[in-house]
């Protein structure tokens, strides 16, 4: 029983991951609203875009903690998502502000369904990793 840095990073990840789950739920709802015509794409994009970078930074932040804690397996588990995030942000449409979503092409059926699928996959990933972090936290707390 020892409160190591690994255990601390798992606790942090647990808390932050809960935020990420909320982010992705919000994302899914937002795109559903777009699909069912409840919201104007301009408004919707301006509410979604500010959330993109915080999400990425939160995710990268606790992965950095895992890196320093030497939790290699957990880090490997997350690296594909980090790579995807970076790739996605590098290929974003030309825009002055932060964000990914362009109101002029967001209503394209392809983009819309891609974003929606992305939301669901991320939600599943974050949920899965939530339980994994829980397990990791307990394991690192009771080990040694």
């Amino acid at each position, binding site marked *: 029983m020892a409160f190591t840095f690994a255990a601390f990073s798992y606790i942090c990840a647990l808390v932050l991951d809960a935020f990420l789950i909320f982010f992705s739920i919000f994302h899914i709802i937002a795109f559903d609203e777009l*699909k069912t015509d409840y919201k104007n794409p*301009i408004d919707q994009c301006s509410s979604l875009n500010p959330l993109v970078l915080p999400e990425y930074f939160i995710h990268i932040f606790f992965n950095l903690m895992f890196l320093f804690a030497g939790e290699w397996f957990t880090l490997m588990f997350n690296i594909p998502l980090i790579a995807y995030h970076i790739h996605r942000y590098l290929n974003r449409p030309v825009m002055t502000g932060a964000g990914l979503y362009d109101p002029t092409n967001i*209503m394209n059926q392809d983009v819309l369904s891609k974003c929606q699928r992305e939301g669901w996959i991320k939600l599943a990933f974050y949920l899965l990793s939530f339980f994994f972090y829980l397990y990791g936290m307990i394991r690192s707390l009771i080990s040694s």
Partner: protein
Amino acid sequence: MASQPPVQYNLMSPSIPNATGTSQPPLLQRPITSNGIGQPSAGSRFPVPATSNSVPVSATTNSQWARPPVSSQFAPSTMSQPSFTAAGHQQCNPAIFGQDSPRPVLETQSSGRPPSSSSGPPLNNYQSGQPIINGNLGPPLANGVRTPTAYSGVNYATPATSSMGYSSPGVPPQYASQNFMPPQLHYGSGPPMGRPAGPPVPQQQYSTGYPSYSSASGQLPPISGIHTQQLSYPAAPVLPNAPVNQFQNFNSSIDKMASQMNTMSVTQTGFDKIWGHENVDLLQVRNILPAQGVETPRIRLRQEHLNNVHCSMDIFRCTLTKIPETNSILQKSRLPLGVLIHPFKDLTQLPVIQCQTIVRCRSCRTYINPFVYFVDQRRWKCNLCFRVNDLPDEFQYDPMSNSYGDPTRRPEIKNATIEFIAPAEYMLRPPQPPVYLYLLDVSHVAAETGYLKLFCDVLLEELEKIPGDSRTQIGFITYASSVQFYNLAENLNQPHQLVVSDIEDIFLPCPNDLLVNLNESKRLVIELLEQLPLRFNNTADCNSALGAALQAAYKMVSPTGGRITVFQASLPNIGPGALKPREDPNQRAAKDVPNLNAATDFFKKFALDCSGQQVAVDLFLLGGQYMDIASLSCASKFSGGCMYHFPSFHYVHNLPQVERLEHSLRRYLTRKIGFESVMRIRCTHGLSIHTFHGNFFVRSTDLLSLPNINPDAGFGLQVSIDENLSEVQNICFQAALLYTSSKGERRIRVHTMCLPIASTVADVIQSADQQCIVGLLAKMAVDRSLHSSISDARDAIVNVCVDVLSAYKATMSSAPSGLYAPSNLRLLPLYLAALLKSVAFRTGQSTRLDDRVFAMNQLKVLPLSQLILSVYPDMYAIHNLHDQGAISQGEMVIPQPPRIHLSAEMVDSTGAYLLDTGDVIYLYVGRNIHPAFIENVLGSSSFQSLPEQMFELPELETAESERLRNFLVHLQNQRPYPAVLQLIREDSQIRHLFSSHLVDGRTESSLSYYEFLQHLKNQIK
């Protein structure tokens, strides 16, 4: 977004008073059939002339209308515009019968009328030719019961409606006198005999042997918007409009058509093969281009009576005339499914209706249309969502006959294109006034081009014709390093110029009087337009602060909404939205083209702001240097604007562009315009709209926000099939365009297209519409180039061609060795090969980035007929025009030279050729042309003495000259504004303008058409 107009809500509430305060009976209005003297339009179904006044129509015995005439309204004599009714040909297609008659009509005999056809009991009622309507039609009219006071609809035939090109005094009430009859009759008896006098309309292609109605009207004014397809097979000499034995007549028509088809190699033995589902071995056929133009495929519904009411193919066109039952059939056919629409096209005939409640489906808000099914007299079943709705009482009332009881007689049920005058619930704010703001680049580069003088002159001339009413507002901004405003307040002696040099944080120097009422300040406007060209003659200012000027313009126009017109001649290089040159001139011929996308999102964000405030930005780009159209175009792309490009415009050195600008500008200033508009496109449950193409902002899955709509804008949409459609018989698309007219009226224009279902791959392939497919593929390829790369897009184009031909091969029972295509798709490889060589997609050939980007934008927005012309121009040999096969319009005899392939082998040095590319018509004269031609047509003594620049033909009194001029007039009449005619001598320096359009030939970097076919053949397994 609060100011955006609503599309719908609460229509069915009967308590809402009519916008004009009129009361029952419901007001219906139909200005089209007016003859200007209050002559009642007669609706007789019998071959007798309905009234003595309608002489030109009196021969309309078996008119093609399988449905009774629509409520014809009579004619207020206030009708001012001399234009002419096309007698409903736009919507109703007489020629269907002409085409169908030789074929055994399988569909008609099949199992009677299917249950979901819209011919319920009421319809059968009149199909039997009952006299009820008839009896009611005549007398009230003749007795003058239907006085204008009885129909307040008359009010609407005032300038507001007449501006749309309705009928004029002296035009016979054709529409009204069409009679109807059971459609089956036509099949038994060949083509209908008499034809209403009318213009050559699309159907003419089938009317070869009939008493031609092209002879009929001498008073035809030019009709804008007839498309090339209309020229097909018209060649029969005009027969007298007399009763001939129908069969003989028809046989002769077959013979003629067959003889015409001799030029095409498809014409083996007889008629059946041509209309049948023949295939063509592309490698064997040398001249695959139909000499008389490409025929438009028609939609054939199983419910025969509905085939008369189809929306014009120029307005609404689907890539497949039969929709595959399931997505897997569509995938197997490898064809793109999509719709091209030209919603605000100038129409010669359009029913306008004002009623208290616009009947719409309660659940999906579809407008009632000809393809709905009447469950009984009081209920109708929506053809998009299949909900059964109640009919309001007033819908029972037929204003034509003053009778109640038969909803199918309503104009809404008889026209697939219709316009409603919208009641107050369609407005979120009072209709805006027309507001026009002009932004003029006055930098040194712009002053050099000299466009300002031309602009001011044209605007001065057209000032009276600008669409608008007493509320019209106008304003001007000029900009270079600073932004100059013009105070045009009524009480001033002369225009005051106000200069703002703080371009980083632009502000309006005075709160009002920058936008002024045109009528009140006309004197100052005229004075300003006279001064402007002089004022900026010798400017040395090399900067252009377009961004700041746009922001200022937005501040001026945003409270009302309106139109911002920008004339830009140089790269905007200072202030917000400044751009940098990105093009590398050495890479113009490279395989992959970078920088097709915008460099900054300034213009896009600006356009979105504009779109929210109902402001559209139109661009006139005149630069000789790189001006980053890719970035600038965003301003009009997302605000529903339009763009014109005049590369290297110069008022002395580039006269063809001067001509082009003048023609385009005249059209631009005077054409119809719709403000604060939205377009919603609905389709039958089971289909969904996938992607939109055109200039607009997509506000929701099926709603396009179009701050302005203009009659030259086309749109495309890709459609996907989500569900199995085997349960339904027909698929419908409905486009509803809600707009504010320049007279401040809120109107809704509704187009409905209905298509049958096909259940086999072969059926789907054989129903494909090659031109429409090319149109849609071009738009998709532009998207692909922007998102991926041009080489990707080129590959995709070739792959489509390979896939389609492979899919067709798979449907054939035996696999022959050649390269076979179904006859309806035989031109697809030709068009796609040409598309690969078009300015937008060509590689290996030096192409300026701006030209390419502009060409891509045009592919996205051009209406189909112009798009096809720009991809594969029409070429005619004109050294040998003759009257054989000519058609006549009034007193004009128009020769019909065959279209020839765009290949250098067709061009002879002893010939003269006309190349019609849409906005420019090139007249190419070979070096060894017969001197007589030069003398008789071009008015010169020899080839050497021909002028280098020539923009119109001399009016010589020779037969050759007259033929060519008639033919040119004929070509010009088919487009919204006249094209520029440009003479090119074979030894001229600008010869490449002509030769670059010879796309069938081989160039250093591209395959010839024949090589392309060989390539396809190798690809197809």
